């Protein structure tokens, strides 16, 4: 066990865990941030996507010891009032069915739009194809990313 100091959602927090513990389980089991989901544990589904210094990463395969001083943003910290353009677009387009994968989808989409505010359809599909949705909400995910892109500056 070791004590890790982490910057999560602009707060410094501590977790006393083994160093190989994936960030995902530190967030969920130790810090009570359960918005980040477990889906596969091998970086195949994207349900666990968080931002590490603004870039989308899979927290299920990121050991806590590798986080260092990087700033972690989870779905809970994406916006203060749940009003990030991507979050709003997800509601407007009514994307979710079961909803389980959507936090990961939103984090992936938000990172894409940060890097590329006006992505082409091909860029949206190429990026979002890394995230699985077992309900098959892909049409609306694509539409919502476009809506968010059209509304952000």
């Amino acid at each position, binding site marked *: *066990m070791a004590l890790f100091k982490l910057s999560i959602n602009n707060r410094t927090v501590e977790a006393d*865990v*083994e160093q*190989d*513990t*994936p960030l995902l*389980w530190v967030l*969920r*089991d*130790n810090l*009570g*941030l*359960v*918005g*980040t*989901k*477990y*889906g*596969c*544990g*091998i970086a*195949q*589904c994207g*349900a666990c996507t968080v931002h590490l210094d603004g870039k989308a990463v899979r927290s299920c395969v990121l050991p806590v010891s590798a986080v260092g001083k990087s700033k972690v943003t*989870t*779905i*809970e910290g*994406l916006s203060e009032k*749940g009003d990030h353009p991507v*979050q709003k677009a*997800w*509601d407007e387009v*009514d*994307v*979710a*069915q*079961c*909803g*389980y*994968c*959507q*936090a990961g989808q*939103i984090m992936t989409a938000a990172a894409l739009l940060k890097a590329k505010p006006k992505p082409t359809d091909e860029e949206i*599909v*190429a990026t*979002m*194809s*890394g*995230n*699985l*949705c*077992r*309900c*098959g*909400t*892909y*049409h*609306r*995910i*694509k539409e919502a990313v476009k809506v968010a892109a059209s509304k952000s500056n």
Partner: protein
Amino acid sequence: MKTLDQTSRRDFMKVAAAAGGGLFLGFSWSNSNALPVVVDAKSIAAGTINFNAYLSIGTDDIITIVSPNPEIGQGIKTAFPMVVAEELDADWKQVKTVQGNLDTNIFERQLTGGSGAVPHSWDRLRKAGATARYMLVEAAASTWKVPAAECTTENGKVLHKASGKSLTYGQLAEAASKLEAPKEVQLKDEKNFKLIGQSVRNVDNNNIATGKPLFGLDFYREGMLFALVQRPKAFGLKLKSVNADAAKKMPGIVDVVTFENSVAVVGKSTWQVKKAREALKIEYEKAADLESSADHNRIFSQLMDNGEATVRRKNGDVEAAFKGAAKVIKAEYQCPFLPHSPLEPMNFFAHVREDGVELVGPTQTPDRARAEVAKLTGIAPEKISVEITRQGGGFGRRLAADYVIEAAHVSKLVKAPVKVIWTREDDMTGGIYRPAVRYRFEAALDKNGEMIGYKLRGVGINSGNPTREDNFPSGSVDNLLIDSVEHKSPITTGPWRAPITNFLAYAEQSFIDEVAEAAGKDPVAFRLALLEKAKKSPAGEVKYDVDRMIGVIKLAAEKSNWGKKNGVHQGFSVYFSHRSYVAQVGEVVVEKGKPVLKNVIAAVDCGIVINKSGSLQQVRGGVVDGLGHAMYGNMTFKDGTPDQSNFNGFRLIRMNEIPEVEVHFVENGISPTGLGEPALPPTGGAAANAFYKATKQRLRNQPFINEEAFKGIS
């Protein structure tokens, strides 16, 4: 206007005033905003009323509507309250919806499965709203001393237009609560629906998009322990011995317990128990045959020719029809096992105490979960509470209670609150799959190309009856024989979204396409002619609605501009399942030598559409699901062990692999007939038939990606 009689005691709705004021039909709901997880089980016991009902109205005008059935992504938590709100004439903006806990005293059929929730509850929900509306009107009329007939309702208010008076439901709730509930209540004419048929957004959108704890896996309790269970790695093995010495010494581990063929590692965090589980030393011994996929193929062939078949339906003289046939068409189709793969893996919280049990988690059948836990613990069902969380998909997997029983086992053994979690590997290799099935179809055509004989034999592995003997084309062929053979295997199977029909529909609709071609007829015209025959001179009993089936066929043909598109290869499919009818046209275009399914046009008859947005997505999602699994889904076995254990080996469809999906609903005013499953079955057939047009190669086995037509194409 429709009138509904109060029929059973359970349907009889009483009203009482609650201490806090307001109109409460059914139990009061004081903490509906409480997080995590929907509902505090104790609030039901503390509620003042114990009747079958769905809503309460607060003096603050907030209308709380309970949705009792598990939400797994089918949209019930939005659709159910919409129906109540419609009859109530509530203002949707003032409606709060909450997930009900298991309560068999006040709710019936509190399960999600068989696309049956809306068909079952349609009238009950409407009556719940209409009864409250009636009482609110009575209360207003008596306050104003005017006849109730002069009062109208809209947007959460009762109005008296002649005098210009109006009162909100919240203002009237207390007075209304003192009135007798009506014995009969008038329901709206469907033509006057304002909310039903509109697009209403998922009521949990905001919670989902901000990462609130909604799901079973998100449930945490102070002092709760985590458990991972090691189950036998192969179907057919049983536990012989366990050495947990090393595992027990690992950090965070509280205990290792054994029950039946399972070993549970219990500790303080998910990661710690996962690592400790890997340190277990377990020996197993053979308890049954360890089957491989090669064995299954051999068994299929053997039973297809020599199995002792159970006759499911027989009309006319099949042997004579085939003897006298001008042409006989014969083909075999095969579909593999499939895991359900809900993105939230199996998990459940249990706290078994001496005097009762608390269960929290994702289940499609809370009542079964409770019954099983009662059996295990010897504790009476009324002392067992079940909180139903939002569920990260179900697809039939959560109809089983195995993972709930496990949680109860572990909690009982370690005498502590425990959450059992399945890793993805556990979920995929832990059993209960769609059964693998092989079909043999045979059709006899006369010299005019009329189908005079039809035979279907289904051979399934733990499939039960893998046919739907009374579905189309039964009733349209004079001489017909449908039978089946089952092989019993240690590999566990169960319902998978649109059970049986999720693969039978593809096989049958692809075969019908083969028969139409052999008869030299257009696939749509061929199906319509069979249905006309089923209508005019049915062969035996016809248990589907021929006109509704014709309706969706014609609509899909019209909307797809069937047979008139240049450079587009169209394939047709139609299926009746779970009371609803769906026809689909798949459109394949060849791009750089590669056949690509670009579009699916779906015509859907599920009766009245409650939530347009949810229903549209339900159909699109069903098509994506149906296509994805037909195209890529494959679970194989070696010596009883699944070859695939996670999404790297088991391929799920992704965004870059989906077609556009165009959806058309039939408007016929029929009471809703269900939509959670019916859009899925036709998709495999529409795709296979369109791919055939483009490649001239039949896709007779799933997954399609392994077939000759896709060789060299990823």
